[in-house]
């Protein structure tokens, strides 16, 4: 209950709500446009601004066509959780600015969640997960064949780490401000 109150306290403030929404949109946009970066680059050199903007807008539809239901779900969750995570971290650091912040654990977990999520997101079309490229870089691309969800595991891991990070930050915020002995 007290954790819910903390979340309410933070996100009732327009600054943190706006920060969360903006960061969530940025992460979501990168995930959906990721497979089309090369196309966007080519079109931006020849098309008018209005044509480019229309194309960019239409590419958001890829969340329905270019993602499985599972990958679309965790991509949206990662985007929202990342936005929340960054806002809570900002709130915590600002509040503790005069104290002695110890955000080591939550910071690393949050970053780990983002990195893991990034490996899992991207175009879910057959064989094009980012993780496929990264694994192949280390010469172990074949390991995907042994993963039951073909690489989507890293999306789940990203969600789990970000949820834990949000929980940890919320818990830290509720901790009383005391000087360590």
């Amino acid at each position: 209950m007290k954790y819910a109150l903390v979340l309410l306290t933070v996100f009732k403030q327009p600054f943190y709500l706006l920060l969360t929404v903006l960061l969530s949109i940025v992460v979501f946009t990168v995930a959906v446009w990721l497979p089309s970066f090369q196309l966007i680059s080519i079109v931006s050199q020849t098309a008018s601004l209005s044509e480019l903007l229309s194309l960019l807008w239409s590419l958001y539809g890829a969340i329905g066509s270019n993602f499985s239901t599972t990958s679309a779900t965790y991509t949206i969750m990662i985007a929202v959780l990342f936005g929340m995570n960054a806002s809570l971290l900002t709130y915590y650091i600002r509040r503790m600015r005069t104290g002695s912040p110890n955000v080591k654990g939550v910071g690393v977990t949050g970053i780990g969640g983002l990195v893991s999520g990034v490996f899992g997101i991207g175009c879910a079309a057959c064989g094009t997960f980012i993780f496929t490229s990264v694994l192949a870089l280390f010469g172990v691309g074949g390991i995907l064949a042994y993963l039951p969800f073909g690489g989507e595991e890293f999306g789940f891991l990203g969600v789990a780490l970000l949820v834990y990070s949000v929980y940890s930050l919320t818990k830290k915020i509720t901790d009383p401000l005391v000087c360590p002995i």
Partner: protein
Amino acid sequence: MEEQINSKQPNQFLIPVAILIAGLFVAGALYFSGTGSGPAPVVNNGNNQPVAQAPEPTGSTDAVRLVGETDHIKGNPDAPIKIVEYSDFECPFCKRFHDTMNEVMDKYGDSGEVAWVFRQFPLEQLHPVKAQLAAVASECAAELGGNDAFWSFTDGYFADPSTGNNRTNQDVLIPELAAAAGLDSAQFSECLESGRHDERIAADSQNAIETGGRGTPWSVMIGPDGTTYPINGAQPLAAIEQLISIAQNTQ
């Protein structure tokens, strides 16, 4: 007291450093997913053995092979805009994109503005045996029944709700589709076992890789002025329509 303050110094840099590291990971991931410097997919040579030396992906859509008489084309072969799709019969996203392309052809096909060129790109690692068999079967349909039989087989395969993800019951479906296309079953069986289309399928797949394809569906749209546009994955109908509009305006 001063010692205690100094001992806290590393924590001040922990978050920025962690963000920097994460940024490098993200940048690396974007780089390796977007420039075609990633792995070459395993190309099937027909015997379900990887081809020894698949070419490294160059990421250049200009490497798309010229559309010719041997291609499977829906619509006007001389259309100013050609969408060359490299597809895997067992890929569920190819199934979605097949529907999208049929809608594109419903809108732009009759006027002769757009042609759809279908090339093979079976992903052996993801859909072993079945993707290759379906590709061979579609080529046999084309050999024995021409372009109409090819599209009858291909449309039928993707339209069947039980196909995809390497779970298709091909023993039942392929003969059914061959019969529906009016093909002789004995000749069709002989063709399936002959292996004579393996080279063509491997060539299509290698061309997909040369153009930057690392997954399916992968498409290259060729505009009226020869500009090539990569279409990665099952992009939505609205995006394809917008891209056609952009290509038309660059004439």
